[in-house]
């Protein structure tokens, strides 16, 4: 069996919280495993409430935090063993992040094209003005924008939807094989949200990029993802084929999540009561 693109193997992370006398351990992620195969791009949605460890898991996959248990292997190599700068650059070229709030992801005092140019120079090995511009333009075309629209603009001149597209374009410059998208549409307006979500689909189908899509929105997860992983209190409680799981959730927490989704189709019906609080 060939090495998986991403193999998260019984990973856990424990933080120590509290002071000298009230020290206790907090298991933010507890024994989570997941696997993305190389050569078959897919979108894996990680769903869970706030504080369930979704973002911590993403940070571990991006090698921004080291797991205290288990291992994360990318193409067979343990990401925590990366020591040299060259290895780190090679890893970052393959795995790129997209963050939740596009307004905070860019420095408001710097022109936005700078991020594209720096990425092109460092990750794509572009040399010379023309080459850098060409690569930035190509990435922007993949998200439905062009360099002419973006060049010289500051973040405040662009809408949230445009900024998020630029963030995705920046991630695409290095031609990654895996994108970790942490709540990429929760700060984007409803009217623009579907265009971003559709873009992820296109990335999977046309550019063969695998995507880990972290969200608490079950409806968009149902719409784009191939598989889902539902997390609660740091543990994976249910996983499987997206539509099967979300149509017929088995775990009590998954059922609770699904029942809590407020659908526009409920208009005119009395709101069903919820048992917990």
């Amino acid at each position, binding site marked *: 069996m060939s090495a998986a693109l991403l193999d998260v193997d019984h990973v856990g992370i424990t933080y120590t919280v509290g002071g000298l006398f009230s020290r206790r351990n907090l298991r933010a992620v507890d024994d989570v495993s997941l696997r993305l195969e190389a050569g078959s791009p897919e979108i894996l949605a990680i769903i869970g409430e706030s504080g369930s460890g979704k973002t911590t898991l993403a940070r571990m996959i991006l090698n921004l935090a080291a797991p205290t248990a288990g291992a994360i292997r990318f193409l067979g190599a343990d990401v925590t063993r990366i020591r040299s700068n060259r290895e780190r650059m090679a890893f970052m070229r393959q795995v790129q992040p997209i963050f939740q709030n596009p307004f905070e992801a860019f420095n408001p005092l710097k022109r936005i094209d700078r991020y594209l140019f720096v990425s092109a120079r460092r990750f794509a090995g572009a040399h010379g003005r023309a080459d850098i511009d060409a690569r930035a333009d190509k990435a922007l075309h993949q998200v439905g924008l062009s360099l002419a629209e973006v060049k010289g603009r500051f973040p405040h001149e662009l809408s949230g939807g445009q900024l998020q597209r630029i963030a995705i374009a920046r991630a695409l410059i290095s031609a990654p094989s895996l994108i970790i998208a942490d709540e990429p549409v929760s700060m984007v307006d409803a009217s623009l949200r579907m*265009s971003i979500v559709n873009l992820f689909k296109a990335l999977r189908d046309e550019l063969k990029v695998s995507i880990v899509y972290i969200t608490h*929105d079950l409806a968009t997860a149902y719409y784009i993802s191939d598989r889902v992983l539902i997390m609660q209190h740091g543990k994976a409680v249910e996983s499987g084929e997206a539509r099967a799981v979300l149509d017929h959730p088995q775990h009590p927490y998954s059922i609770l999540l699904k029942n809590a989704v407020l659908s526009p189709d409920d*208009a005119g019906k009395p*709101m069903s009561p919820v048992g917990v609080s």
Partner: protein
Amino acid sequence: MSAAGPPQGANSSPSGGSEAAPAASVGAHQPSAAVPSSAADVKPATERVLTVRDLRAYYRTKYFGVSREVRAVDGVSLHVDRNEIYGLAGESSCGKTTLVKTIVRAIRPPLGVVDGSVTFNFAGRDRDIYALTQNELESIRWRHLSYILQGSMNVLNPVRRVRQSFVDFAYRHIQQPMPEFLAQIESHLDRVRLAPTVLDAYPHELSGGMRQRVTIALATVCRPDFIIADEPTTALDVVVQKDVLTMLREIQREIRSSMILVTHDIGVHANVTDRLGIMYAGRLVEEGRTVDVIRNPRHPYTSHLVTSLPRIGDVTQKRGLEGTPPNLAAPPTGCRFHPRCPLAIAACCVEAPPLIDVVPGHRVACWVTAPLKEPVIAQ
């Protein structure tokens, strides 16, 4: 039109007449209807608590001799009845928050009211909120009119215990000695299923959902006639969101207050609100009973909002709206939606469509879809 004007009974004949007329005369009819002197004469069947007439609120700035005017609320008329939840939906920067801030008179320069009026009816007295003195305003606030702010998880004073926040906000409005006041707060906290021990906690010791419930308890403890809730659940995750909304609705039904609920989430509106107004670029483009607006949207923007929502169990392809939201400092001419509208015709670029009744109680501002509904009105 009906928001500004008299209730349905008196309204149906003039608006029915204007439906039958060509579009241009509908436009001509609008200004006269926007100044409804008859509203006071006709006794409404249901008690009207809030009437907003042709409200315009602009942000006006002047730097180095360059003045700039952002028309965040541009000619909005609406009304809210007693015991009714009115929803406001629309994308970011469409003026939702500016509108509710203007309604509660929580504005400061550069935002100012340019035109229009906001009239509340508290305890049988009509009061124009912009004609009140500062003292009158303070006595109305919280007693009759409370405001749950956007990001309200974070509005509690971090260095004061929850008990002290309750005293700060509500003690002066509840004319009772301190022990009875605290007992009343404890029984009120029970309505949002919080134990009395939260009173001794500091805000950072509570979870987001608990803080949100404290804020709701704080806003409802004086049993106000009118509650404004601006994105009360946006930062919460789905399970907690549903709990908080259920409690908000229970309390609202119990104390029979009216409410404006602002959120961009159509799913929340479908479950909570009675009537729904859709805002686009500072204007109301559609308004009606929530069921009608969601099941049978007439404005192209509303229908896009509703049909583009992904749903569990639905695998059809959804599309985002082309184009970008308009810049309110230089909005498009005519209908502000026309650059992104799939149905736009020549008239849309020239003149803004008025908000007219397509069926009684369902108002739409669109040159293309609103006049098409004449047969519905004839019934």
